[in-house]
C-alpha cells in the first residue's frame, strides 16, 4: 500500500468557546512483511487551528445553531478544505453546553454539515479523555511511571481523566469552571450556576445573583474550589465537600496521582500574571482568571507535581481532531457498499475459553445478548447494534465454527428484519469469523466483521469507508448527555 493520509477535523463546541482544527493522519504498516498486514496511524500533523470563537448562544440555555454553522463554514474556507476532503474526525460538545436544550440537535446537524465522516459526540467522560490526549497527558503517561491526571477546566466543568502507561484508568467530572460565576468589574454577580449552590452553602458562603461580591470573598471561593478538587485527587481524608461538585459518579477508588496537568481555558489562564484586582479578575466577565491562579497556588500544597500542558485551551479539539480515529485490523470482512455506518450502538459479548468449547454455554450467552438487544432496540430493528467480542485470547477453527453457528442463528432469530450483522472483535480474527458467518448467512443478513478494536458496553461507533479495500477508520464515542 502506498503512503496514505486521511484528513481529520475536530470541532469543540464548549460552554464559552468554540474552536476547530484540521489535521492529517498518516497510515503506516506496523507489522513485518512476513506477518498478516496491520496498518495504524503513525503520524499526525496539525494543518490548521482556528481562532477561538465565543460560542454563540441565543439565551443562556440555547445555542445559536445558525451562527455555529457559519463559523464552521468560514473556518473550512480559511483552511481551504472541502467537505469531500474530510475522512474522519469528531465534533464534540463539551461541558455545560451539552445540557443546553438544543445541544443534541446541534451536534447532529453539525456532524452532517461538517463532512461525511465527522462524528457527533459528547459526554464528559469522552471529553476528559480527548482533552488528556490533546494536552499530552496520555503520551506523558507512556514515558513516566505513575498516574497522570489531566484536568481540563473550561467554563462549566472540570473533566478529569487519569492515565497510566497510556491507558485511561478513570474519568470524573466536577462542576468547576470559570463561567460558573459571572460578574462585572465591580463584582456584581450576573450569573451563578445552580450547580455550585449547594456546595457554596455547605462551605458557608452565601452569595446570590445580583449581589456584589468582594475580591476577598471571590478569592476564598476559588481557593476552596481548588481545594475540593485537589483534595479529592490527593485522597486526603476529611474534606468531602467535593461530593457537592461532582457531575456524575465519583471514581470507585482514587489512585495515587503523581502528576497533574491542567488544560482547557483555565489551564491557559494559569500562564498569565495573578489578577490583583476585581477589574483584572473580571476581564472576561467571569471569575476564570482567579480560579486559574488559585488552582495553581493550591497545587503546591499537594503531593503531586503540576506539569504544564502541551495544549491548554485547544486540548480537547486537538484530541477530537487528531486522536479520535482508530484503524481497524487490516484483515477484516467488509462490504464497501454498506459503509459508512454511523452511531452504531455496541453490546459487549464477553466470552471465555470454556464458552467457546461448549455449544450450550455459547448458546446461552449469545441468546442473552440477543434478548437484551431486542429489548433495547426492538426485534424489528434494521440496524440494531454491533456485537463486540471480547474476553478470550485464542480461537481454534472448531470454536470459530461454533461461534459462527450461534451468532448467525441467534441474530437471525432475534432480528429477522435486519439485513446487516456487525461484529467487532478485539482479537485478530475478523476475516475468519466474517467468512464463516457469511457462509452461514448467505447475504441474509450481510456481514461486516472488523477486529483489533476495543469497545465498551454503551459505546457508539462510527465505521468509515474502506481504505485500500483492506481496513476502515473507526471512531468510538459515548453519547451520554447529562440530564
Amino acid at each position, binding site marked *: 500500500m502506498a503512503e496514505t493520509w486521511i484528513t481529520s477535523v475536530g470541532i469543540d463546541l464548549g460552554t464559552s468557546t468554540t474552536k476547530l482544527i484540521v489535521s492529517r493522519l498518516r497510515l503506516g504498516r506496523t507489522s513485518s512483511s*512476513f506477518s498478516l498486514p496491520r496498518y495504524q496511524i503513525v503520524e499526525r500533523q496539525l494543518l490548521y487551528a482556528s481562532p477561538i470563537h465565543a460560542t454563540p448562544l441565543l439565551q443562556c440555555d440555547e445555542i445559536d445553531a445558525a451562527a455555529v454553522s457559519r463559523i464552521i463554514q468560514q473556518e473550512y474556507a480559511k483552511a481551504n478544505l472541502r467537505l469531500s476532503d474530510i475522512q474522519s474526525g469528531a465534533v464534540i460538545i463539551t461541558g455545560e453546553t451539552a445540557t443546553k436544550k438544543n445541544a*443534541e440537535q446541534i451536534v447532529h446537524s453539525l456532524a452532517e454539515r461538517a463532512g461525511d465522516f465527522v462524528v457527533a459526540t459528547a459526554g464528559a467522560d469522552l471529553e476528559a479523555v480527548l482533552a488528556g490526549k490533546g494536552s499530552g497527558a496520555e503520551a506523558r503517561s507512556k514515558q513516566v511511571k505513575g498516574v497522570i491526571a489531566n484536568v481540563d477546566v473550561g467554563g462549566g466543568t472540570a473533566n478529569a481523566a487519569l492515565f497510566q502507561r497510556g491507558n485511561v484508568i478513570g474519568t470524573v467530572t466536577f462542576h468547576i469552571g470559570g463561567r460558573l460565576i459571572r460578574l462585572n468589574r465591580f463584582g456584581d454577580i450576573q450569573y451563578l450556576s445552580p450547580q455550585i449552590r449547594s456546595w457554596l452553602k455547605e462551605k458557608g458562603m452565601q452569595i446570590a445573583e445580583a449581589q456584589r461580591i468582594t475580591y476577598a470573598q471571590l478569592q476564598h471561593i476559588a481557593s476552596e474550589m481548588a481545594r475540593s478538587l485537589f483534595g479529592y485527587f490527593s485522597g486526603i481524608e476529611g474534606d468531602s465537600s467535593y461530593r457537592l461538585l461532582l457531575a456524575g459518579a465519583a471514581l470507585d477508588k482514587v489512585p495515587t496521582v503523581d502528576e497533574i496537568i491542567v488544560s482547557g481555558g483555565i489551564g491557559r489562564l494559569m500562564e498569565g500574571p495573578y489578577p490583583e484586582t476585581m477589574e483584572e479578575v473580571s476581564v472576561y466577565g467571569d471569575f476564570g482568571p482567579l480560579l486559574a491562579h488559585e488552582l495553581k497556588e493550591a497545587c503546591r500544597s499537594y503531593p503531586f507535581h503540576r506539569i504544564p500542558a502541551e495544549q491548554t485551551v485547544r486540548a480537547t479539539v486537538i484530541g477530537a481532531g487528531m486522536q479520535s480515529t482508530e484503524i481497524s485490523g487490516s484483515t477484516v470482512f467488509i462490504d464497501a457498499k454498506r459503509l459508512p455506518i454511523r452511531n452504531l450502538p455496541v453490546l459487549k459479548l*464477553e466470552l471465555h475459553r470454556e464458552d467457546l468449547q461448549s455449544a450450550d454455554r455459547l448458546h446461552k450467552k449469545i441468546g442473552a445478548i440477543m434478548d437484551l438487544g431486542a429489548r433495547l432496540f426492538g426485534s424489528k430493528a434494521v440496524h440494531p447494534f454491533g456485537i463486540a467480542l471480547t474476553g478470550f485470547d*485464542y480461537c*481454534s477453527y472448531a470454536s470459530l465454527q461454533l461461534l459462527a453457528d450461534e451468532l448467525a442463528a441467534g441474530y437471525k432469530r432475534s432480528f429477522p428484519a435486519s439485513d446487516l450483522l456487525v461484529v467487532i472483535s*478485539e482479537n485478530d480474527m475478523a476475516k*475468519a469469523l466474517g467468512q464463516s458467518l457469511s457462509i452461514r448467512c448467505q447475504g441474509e443478513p450481510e456481514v461486516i466483521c472488523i477486529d483489533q478494536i476495543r469497545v465498551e458496553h454503551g459505546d457508539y461507533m462510527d465505521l468509515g469507508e474502506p481504505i485500500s479495500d483492506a481496513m476502515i477508520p473507526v471512531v468510538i464515542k459515548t453519547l451520554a448527555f447529562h440530564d
Partner: protein
Amino acid sequence: MSDIQVNLLLEKVMAELQKRLQREMPVEAAGAINNAENGAANDRTLFDPVSMLPNPRDKEGLAELVASTPARIGVWRTGTRPLTKTMLQFRCDHAAAVDAVYGEVNPTILDQFHLFTVETSFEDTENYLKRPDRGRILTDAAVAKLKARCMEKPQVQVVVSDGLSASAIDANLADVLPALLDSLKAHKLSSGTPFFVRGGRVAAMDHIGEVLKPEVVVLLIGERPGLVTADSMSAYMCYKPRKGTVESDRTVISNIHRGGTPPVEAGAHIGTIVKKMLEQKTSGVNLVV
C-alpha cells in the same frame, strides 16, 4: 422511543450489566489480550519470574516489564549463573525444539484431512539438514503418485509439509487448513487434491509445480523451531512455481501459531492473497497487496 431515550435506557442497563460482569469476571481477560499484543506467547509453560527476584526495587514495575516481552527476563541469578529452575526451563524448551526437528507428524491429523503422503529425496533427517537441495526434489515414486492421484492443472494446489517442525503441523493444521479452504471457497477459487510431503523444503513447491502445473501453490510448512515455541508454521504462496523460481517470487505469512499470527486468521487471509496472485499473475515482491 427517541434516540436519546434509547441512549439513556441503554446506558443504565449497560452500567448495571457492566457492574455485574465485572463482579463475575475479573481482569484476567484483559491480561490475556495484553499478552497477545505484546507477543508474549502462551505456549511456554510460564514460570513466575517476578517471584524469583528476592527483593526487586519495584515489584509492580518488574511485573510490567516481564509481561511486556516473551524474552526471559526477571529471572535472577546465583552468583553470575542462572537459577536451577530457569536453566531447566531453558533446557526443556530446547528439548521440545530438537524433538520438533526430528519428530514425525501425527498420522491421525493427516487422515483427518485425507492427506496422502509423498516424500522428497531427503532420505533421513541428517541428510535433510545437510542437503537442503534434496528436500526440494520429490522422489520418482512421489511424482508417479501425484500424477496418479492429483487433479492436474488445478487453480490452487494446497500442500502440507513437516519442514523443520513436525509439531507445527500437529499444532496448527486443524486450524489453518479448513480456514484456508473456506477462504478459497469464499473467493470462488477451485483447488486440487491436497497432500502431505515428508522431508520437504520450501522450494519443493517448484518441483510440485512442474509435475501438477497449478496456477498457485500454497505450502503450509513447519518453521525452524525456536525456544518460545517449537510449533510455528509458515504459509508460502507462489504463482506458477517452476524450476528456477527464485525466493523473492514467493509470498509468505510466517510465525503462525497460537501465540503469534492467529492460525484461523492466517488461513482466512490466504484466499485474499491467492486471489490477488491470480489477478496480477505474479507473486512475491512483485505482488501488490
